[in-house]
């Protein structure tokens, strides 16, 4: 079985968000990580590899430094890594990004493609389903459990108050939730090997069946009209009282606001 996992390098919002003096996000000052949903997707692929035997290829689109997350994936146990990087691919929205990744994946053999549900920087959850559409294969979003059954995959898909148990014929694309599993750590041997491993680097010329008009900023149907930092509601009052006084304080405020 061959599994392709799409991963993304994202700024780590958990470690605190840094701003430049002009109030815009200081991406350079923030640590980067492998996007959590993607990491869960990689872990799911590695578990399928452990259980059924599989070749796991990780692929990312990004700046040359996105190589870091590919090496991390190799150290966790992925077999091959591909970096898709090219100036003409920059500024892509989800349409152009999914076209790029689909163009790269067309060069590969695959039974399963796994992506994270969404990246923590954009939060769109669009690229996975869009890749599946370009490749004309089924998509199953929000996987919480994955198993293989012959030439099919059986997936529990989470929805609000329920889950569906779905069976799809491979090839199929699955989007994974961070809740899916607890990703494994890199092993010392894995890190050693990953440092020396060769990473395949592809540019525009390596993408199959994609028109220039679908790539990068120019190929993006959506355009940004305005971006700004969010204006937050001002701080209210903060008190530090003993418990009885705290209770009196809360009750007085609830009365003042006619809640009770």
């Amino acid at each position, binding site marked *: 079985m061959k599994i392709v996992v799409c991963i993304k390098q994202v700024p780590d919002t958990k470690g605190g968000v840094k701003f430049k003096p002009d109030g815009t996000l200081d991406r350079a000052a923030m640590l980067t990580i492998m996007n959590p949903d993607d990491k869960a997707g990689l872990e799911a692929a590695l578990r399928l590899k452990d259980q059924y035997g599989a070749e796991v290829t990780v692929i990312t689109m990004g700046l040359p430094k996105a190589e870091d997350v590919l090496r991390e994936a190799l150290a966790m146990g992925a077999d091959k890594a591909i970096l898709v990087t090219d100036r003409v691919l920059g500024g892509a929205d*989800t349409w152009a990004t999914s076209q790029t990744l689909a163009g790269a994946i067309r060069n590969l053999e695959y039974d399963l493609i796994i992506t994270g549900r969404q990246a923590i920087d954009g939060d769109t959850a669009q690229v996975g389903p869009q890749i599946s*559409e370009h490749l004309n294969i089924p998509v199953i979003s929000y996987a919480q459990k994955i198993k293989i059954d012959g030439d099919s995959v059986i997936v529990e898909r989470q929805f609000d108050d329920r889950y569906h148990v779905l069976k799809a014929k491979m090839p199929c694309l699955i989007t994974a939730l961070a809740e899916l599993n607890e990703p494994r750590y890199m092993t010392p041997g894995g890190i050693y090997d990953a440092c020396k491993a060769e990473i395949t680097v592809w540019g525009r010329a390596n993408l199959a069946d994609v028109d220039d008009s679908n790539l990068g900023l120019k190929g993006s*149907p959506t355009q940004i009209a305005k*971006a*700004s930092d969010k204006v937050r509601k001002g701080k209210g009052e903060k*008190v530090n009282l003993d418990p009885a006084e705290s209770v009196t304080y809360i009750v007085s405020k609830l009365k003042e606001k006619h*809640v*009770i």
Partner: protein
Amino acid sequence: MSLEEYKGVYVFAQQVDNEINSIAFELVGKGKDLAADLGTDVTAVLVGSGVRDLADQLAEYGADRVIVVDDPECKEYRTEPYAHALASVIKKFKPEIFLVGATAIGRDLGPRVSARIHTGLTADCTQLDIGDFPLNPVPGKEQKHNQLLMTRPAFGGNTIATIACPDFRPQMATVRPGVMQKKERVPGAKAEIVDFNPGFTPDDKYVEIMEVVKAVSDTVDIMDAKILVSGGRGVGSPENFKILEDLAEVIGGTVSCSRAVVDAGWKPKALQVGQTGKTVRPNVYFAIGISGAIQHLAGMEESDIIIAINKDETAPIFDVADYGIVGDLNKIVPALTEKLRAELAVK
């Protein structure tokens, strides 16, 4: 294609088990405002099996027209038949705007449809307006009028971006549930009903549903609650949520929680407030033992009154709280419950 051919505001009327989701009425409501600005009308697209009778409800909330795609293949939600239904509606009727709820279903369906149609899709919008793009005239670039300007939070709620889709139609957006307002219901209102079946031919993309497992739950939807008593990791244990439940009962509220609580398995996902949970805006939001990660704030900061109780006085939740109480929730919450019980008994 000529962009001018595309007319009207369309919304996807999501139903599950033949019950229309509240988001559908919210989208119709917002669609009415956008349609008024554009001098056009609102069409709801209802997809399912045996759903034709539900169309009147959409009319009562303001839909001018309802396109009904009724087919046994659409009984339970599956990506492919639903994507086929919406893509076929778009190809035939050519809407200029198409809105979908940013629910689990909508966020799965929207990208598949927009990719099939080749148009842009803006995710999780919290504001929609009609305006010019670019916002201000730029030399050498045509300024287009009557564009859908879609505003959404990004970066875990730290930034906010306004997006346009000037060269492709329809302009598509998924819209966060609980943000747009429904119109006042007009009992007995009628809409034009259009039956449309594009034909469904199952292939490998029609995945097989082997089982549907519903979580057993009698909890109220936290998005409808007027008062939420929300707990975080600081509550300490699943058992200790009892003190929050007691408070909720006395004050007529509902218990909700942060992501950490769901991740720890203390409470079900349906009660989660935040970026990956639900957006709520109750009259009163008690944040108890919740530190206030950006992702959490994004889901609750529009609440009318926020009361935070946390022992860590540097917790970010205090940045959005109207009333912040630094202290031990284990002492304050039970005492508050008793005090309120006494106060309300007198009334």
